[in-house]
């Protein structure tokens, strides 16, 4: 257990053992999927805020978390299977066509959907990465529900059909790498999605498809945009926001498996995330902008909610604050906002750092938990009349990632499930991954 001297009021949570603390945080995070689900169609709200639409990525996380809930005894297997089947049925039956208010197109889905009828909202994009996260959840569920009963067989068949109908080749749009999305109003979006990021799982699932698979070369083309950097004294495959080093890892166990790029670098993506965590901690220790709270035991700069257009003069520095944004280190943007959930989500990579940081945070700023669930963003530099700025409510992505990462540390459940997923194995192999557990399966 991480021993820290903490001043002020100690929440009861901090008196718990590490295992008990993790159980409480994980259970509370899972509670999000109970509280903010539409029980009729299985859709999950993006955030806990009133009127929030569904995020398809959050649904993907939810589908991956139901097996965790079964394993932990928070849901019955039958109950979890029923929720899963309902969700898969919704996506199978939803409008997947070129209408502007459909649920999806070409087997992909729009980023945000109406919670009730499941149709596109906000004129949002058909999102490749969010569809990949949704599919990852579907395939994880298919691996978990391996029983002979009708419902579990139905889940496997539905997940397979949903995966098979995704036209990845259409999404490639003859490009060297994948675009971020598509809109019926303007076609493919070109946001210049360069460099390493959270998209590994997108490429793996696209390349592993049995129907419209992406060519294997597309993965190498993506790695051409990588930058192997020595940052703050440590070598890393650079990506600024912490979540980019976590999302694909929530599903895929990258320990010991290497693609061509990592063979050349004599590393692997798991070790790389450890380096990224070390850089986060070193950056927070140096704290070049003098933000309140930052330190080697308090970090977590990533995508998440932020204060928005507030300005503040403190210590002769003009501060500018951003709203929801992908924050990163060391290049920024950084406005002093940390994601309170982020340290705990790094548990499988550096358990000491994750636990010490989380305990430090909870000791110093217990308000970052509400119903034992982490807020999306917290900025102790920006003091308002209500205290340090704190994001309202919570976000489904954060809760789902936390549930999965804690479980991967506790039992390796998700990683073990996806090791058995043919699409993941095939995609990894075609992308050039070899060694480690990939050598031992099949």
């Amino acid at each position, binding site marked *: 257990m991480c021993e820290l001297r903490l001043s002020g009021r100690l929440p009861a949570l901090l008196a718990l053992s590490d295992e008990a603390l993790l159980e409480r945080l994980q259970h509370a995070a899972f509670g999000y999927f109970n509280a903010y689900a539409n029980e009729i169609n299985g859709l999950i709200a993006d955030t806990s805020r009133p009127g929030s639409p569904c995020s398809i990525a959050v649904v993907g996380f939810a589908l991956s978390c139901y097996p965790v809930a079964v394993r932990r005894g928070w849901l019955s297997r039958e109950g979890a299977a029923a929720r899963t089947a309902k969700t898969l049925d919704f996506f199978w039956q939803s409008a997947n066509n070129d209408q502007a208010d459909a649920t999806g197109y070409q087997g992909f889905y729009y980023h945000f959907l109406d919670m009730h009828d499941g149709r596109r909202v906000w*004129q949002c*994009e058909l999102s490749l990465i969010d569809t990949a996260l949704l599919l990852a959840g579907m395939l994880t569920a298919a691996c978990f529900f391996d029983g002979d009963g009708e419902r579990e067989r139905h889940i496997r068949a539905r997940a397979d059909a949903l995966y098979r109908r995704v036209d990845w080749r259409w999404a490639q749009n003859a490009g060297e790498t994948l675009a971020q999305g598509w*809109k*019926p*109003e*303007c076609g493919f*979006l*070109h*946001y*210049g999605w*360069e*460099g390493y990021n959270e998209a590994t799982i997108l490429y793996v699932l696209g390349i592993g498809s049995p129907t419209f698979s992406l060519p294997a070369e597309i993965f190498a083309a993506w*790695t*051409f*945009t*990588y*930058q*192997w*950097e*020595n*940052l*703050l*004294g440590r*070598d890393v495959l650079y990506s*600024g926001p912490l979540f980019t080093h976590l999302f694909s890892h929530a599903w895929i166990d990258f320990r010991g498996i290497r693609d061509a790029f990592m063979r*050349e670098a004599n590393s692997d993506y798991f070790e790389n995330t450890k380096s990224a965590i070390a850089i986060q901690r070193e950056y927070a220790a*140096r704290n*070049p*902008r003098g933000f309140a709270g930052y330190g080697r035991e308090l970090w977590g700069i990533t995508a998440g909610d932020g204060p928005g257009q507030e300005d503040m003069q403190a210590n*002769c*520095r*003009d501060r*500018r604050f951003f709203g929801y944004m992908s924050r990163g280190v*060391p*290049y*920024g*943007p950084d406005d002093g906002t940390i994601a309170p959930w982020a340290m705990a989500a790094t548990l499988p990579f550096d358990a000491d750092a994750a636990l010490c940081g989380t305990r430090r945070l909870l000791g110093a700023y217990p308000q970052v938990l509400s119903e034992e669930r982490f807020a999306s963003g917290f900025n102790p530099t920006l003091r308002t009349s209500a205290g340090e700025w704190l994001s309202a409510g919570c976000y489904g992505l954060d809760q789902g990632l936390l549930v999965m990462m804690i479980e991967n540390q506790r039992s390796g459940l998700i990683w073990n499930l996806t090791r058995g997923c043919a699409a993941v194995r095939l995609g990894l192999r075609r992308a050039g991954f070899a060694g480690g557990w990939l050598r031992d399966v099949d």
Partner: protein
Amino acid sequence: MSIDRSIPTAEALAEESYLRRVHPSDWRNPVPKASYDLVILGGGPCGLAAAATAVGMGRSVALVERNRIGGNSLNVGSVPSKAIVRSGGAMAAVRDGAEYGLARIDDPVADFEAVMARMRGIRTRIAEYHSVERLQSCGIDVFFGAGRFVGKKTLLVDTQPLRFKKALIATGARPRPSDIPGLEQVGYLTSTTIFDLLRLPKRLAIIGGGPLGCEMAQALARMGAQVTILQNEPKFLPHEERDAAELLSRALSRDGVETRLNTTVVGARLQGGEKWVDTVSNGVKFSLAADQIMLSVGRVPNIEDLGLEAAAIDFGAAQGIHVDDYLRTSNANVYSAGDVCMQHKFTNVAQASAQIAVLNAFRLKRRRQSHLLIPWCTYCDPQVAHIGLHVRQARRRAIAVRSVTIMMQDVDRAITDGQDEGFVKIHVRRGSDEILGASIVAAQAGEMINELSVIMSAGIGMRQLAGILHTYPAQSDAIRLAAVAFMRG
């Protein structure tokens, strides 16, 4: 007290002096020699460098210029833009003075007329170094007028024939014209005409997020203009690294520049006495009112009316004059250099390529343009500079790269100066200490990149660089610190 308007103002005198240096109104072309060793079409930085090189070699030289000596760089490019950028920097220094202990000045006001007068004064001063008089004194025959080839070894300046042994086409480039429906009718500024502004536009829309667009956007925003950049790309400075471009994007935002990326301008119109720019971004339409519109979407080579066909010189609309690696055109006696034929349209490239072309033309040396090591810089705050290969270029050549980065926020002098935004990033061939390229974002990146230029030209590797003493404290010490970090592995 009445003003005697018959007495010219100091500024009018300076402007007269400027014109006398770059294109005297009473100029008469000299009687041409029977033949010149070298005739140069274009009196910009490229033509001037070529003339100086050839004269230094004892060659007879004629220089033909349609407009003003000094070309874009002096008259409507690097020099005036940097003068305005400096005024913008001064405004920012006053605005941010409280950070350094000065009494706070909430709303510093720019005197735009004075800014432009300063710019013109600087231009006049620098014009002296390239003046017609100085060229004549070096033995260069200067011809003002439109030059065009009428044969493989002859060209006309207006009606006057000039015969040559060798010729150099150095006619440069000009702002790419608009293909946006309605923009011609509405009227717009370019990177050339913006220096004619008399008043600071209250609202300025800049189409294009390239170097000059970004520089002007930041400088004019600091003076009080409400500036919006409309960029049809996902980031600024498409040729720079993502982190550099994003850092600059945030810096522009801090100075009040509104940026709209992934935004295509689909039209312009006059409505209610105002200029409107119509845009589409990811399928969403948006219209913007502006007092002035600046188009900054690249440059096109000046190849029109040169009689290239008569001299059997190949060319294309986009690439300009076709040259080989030795800068020779399809006519063995005609070379080309600078913006009219080079991919990198920078003053330093124009000058360096001019020297290569002249040396090759007179067969003193055989130099390849592809061997040029080109540093460049966008002079925003912070400045964004680069030299050599980008990581992506290296990886496409199957070169494994390790980049070593020092953040300016970790450099003592950058901290003391309050200029700690940015980084020095050096790209090294993996498994060796060979420097392949570097990117710098820093307040003085344009100066710092020159150290890398020397280092790379001298073939100095990271090991040796780590041991080279720098002054302390110095922002350029970040370069040495990168080498030290490399050695630590």
